[in-house]
């Protein structure tokens, strides 16, 4: 069985990547991701993996090299954060458009300006429409588990899509916590050997990647991408079930925490969900029927299942650690869509709070304050404002 350790989120993810033993890793360092590629580089240098390392001169080049290597027929990884992924942006679309199952940990960090190295979800939310599968992680354990599962999801023959695995910069990436490693052999067996699909290096069968397609078939090509995304959900569930049998740790499309009999709830991603669960327990102890929904698979978004899980509630606050300036928070838009389509037209009252930008601490009292506001809204109090920043220094 596995080994209990106390490690940082970055160390945990670096070890998941080592256990996957990819063919190629193209990289460019950026805080707070640096620690992952630094550790992985030493695995390469010490012969612990057979990976070919490409030190690129920018993230745009790192993703370009990853695309080339994946099209050639290799299992390929990279990792990034914030500005790094912003620079990759055009290449992200190319990776997904060519159906290349590149695996990329994204250590979530704020975007400039002003310059800030700390954790928020602006980078990951900005990649919402790039055609990548996104798995989000609360802890080092979840980031490690999701990274291992990402290979199985992305490389599944029904899908063949790139996957980004998100975890909070510094809050998880640089904090030491107890977690459990699986054995190298178990992970190797679980992930399995890489099976290329239409590899360029199969020179007996020449082919083209990314050719010009104009008004004749581009539209159909994009519909195909839409259809492939529709298959991801079942693959994620199937891989997660298999992973649960191996590890004992169960994952779904999202985590429902004390939601079944709840009247109010938070929808909240990543590490702040952990902090909020302790507050939910505290309020439950006082007779307040609070619950929590933590999304895991954000792209594709499981609208129907989330709608079902939330529709019986009286009031819900969607917490966003990113803003879509001039719009509601990105998670709020998804939850609103899910609730509008929910069966029976039954739906809770929804509010949106923006919290924790640029690494501003999210404390238990922040979660408590929002839940207590929901108690009042559930009783019929008017919603003051739909979208509001919390934890602001006035």
């Amino acid at each position, binding site marked *: 069985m596995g080994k*209990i*350790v*106390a490690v940082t989120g970055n160390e945990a993810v670096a070890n998941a990547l080592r256990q996957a033993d990819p063919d190629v890793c193209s990289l460019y360092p950026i805080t707070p991701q640096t620690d992952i590629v630094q550790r992985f580089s030493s695995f390469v240098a010490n012969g612990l993996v057979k990976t070919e390392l490409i030190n690129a001169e920018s993230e745009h080049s790192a993703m370009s090299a990853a695309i080339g290597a994946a099209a050639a027929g290799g299992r390929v990884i990279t990792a990034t954060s914030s500005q790094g992924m912003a620079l990759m942006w055009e290449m992200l679309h190319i990776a997904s458009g060519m159906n290349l199952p590149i695996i990329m940990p994204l250590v979530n960090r704020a975007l400039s300006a002003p310059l800030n*190295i*700390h954790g928020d979800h602006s980078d990951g939310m900005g990649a919402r429409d790039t055609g990548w599968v996104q798995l989000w992680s*609360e*802890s080092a354990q979840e980031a490690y588990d999701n990274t291992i599962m990402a290979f199985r999801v992305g490389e599944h023959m029904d899908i063949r899509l790139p996957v980004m695995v998100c975890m*909070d910069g*510094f*809050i*998880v990436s*640089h*904090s*030491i*916590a*107890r977690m459990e490693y699986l054995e190298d052999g178990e992970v190797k067996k679980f992930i399995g050997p890489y099976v290329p699909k239409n590899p360029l290096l199969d020179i007996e069968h020449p082919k083209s990647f990314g050719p010009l397609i104009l008004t004749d078939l581009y539209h159909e090509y994009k519909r195909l991408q839409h259809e492939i995304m529709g298959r991801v959900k079942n693959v994620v569930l199937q891989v997660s079930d298999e992973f649960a049998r191996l590890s004992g740790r169960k994952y779904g499309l999202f985590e429902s925490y004390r939601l079944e009999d709840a009247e109010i709830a938070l929808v909240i991603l990543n*590490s*702040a969900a*952990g*902090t909020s*669960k*302790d507050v939910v327990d505290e309020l439950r102890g006082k007779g307040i029927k609070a619950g929590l929904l933590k999304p895991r698979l954000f792209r594709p978004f499981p609208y129907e299942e989330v709608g079902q899980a939330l529709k019986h509630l009286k009031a819900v606050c969607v917490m966003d650690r990113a803003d879509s300036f001039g719009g509601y928070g990105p998670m709020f838009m998804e939850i609103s869509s899910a609730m509008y389509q929910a069966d029976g037209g039954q739906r809770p009252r929804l509010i949106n709070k923006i919290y924790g930008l640029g*690494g501003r*601490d*999210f*404390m*238990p009292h922040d979660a408590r304050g929002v839940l207590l506001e929901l108690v009042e809204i559930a009783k019929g109090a008017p919603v003051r404002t739909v979208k509001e920043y919390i934890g602001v220094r006035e």
Partner: protein
Amino acid sequence: MSEMIEIRWHGRGGQGTVTAAKVLADACLSGGRYVQAFPEYGPERAGAPLRAYNRISDRELRLYCPVTNPKVVSVVDASIMDAMNVAEGAVDDAIFVVNTAKEPAEIRKTLGAKATQKIFTVDATSIAINEIGRPLPNSPMLGAVVRATGLVELPHLSEEVRKSFGKKFSEKIINGNLKAVERGYKEVREG
């Protein structure tokens, strides 16, 4: 120990405070406990005040935020007490462990500690200079914190220090640190 223990470390960049929090987390991992160790990240500069935190619990730890109401406050550099109130938010039965040559009673006065709070002092810098040859007070402070809190047994802590320092340092430095841990453990005084 069924409750969660929260520790706040106050030190200055370059004194090994973050390493101390990491080693303590590793040492507490035994016996099925859950642990966290994390610094407060800012512009890292040698000599600048910094904080680091530990949580240790029998139950899964889900809090991802700084410690604001510590049960244990470990002051690795006493000069920080001139600049900020290290007692801020400390619980009523908090334990303070301060690196100083002064008597616990004097530190109690400086901190304005409550009667229910315990004060421990240890001259960790002198121990470090004697045993390691450099003013790196983290090892004796670890010994003192473990003695004051009873979180783990001394031999177990020493084993973790050996494991952690063994990767980077010579046998001489490791042995100096082990002696420093032991002296911190033995020489810490309560008052």
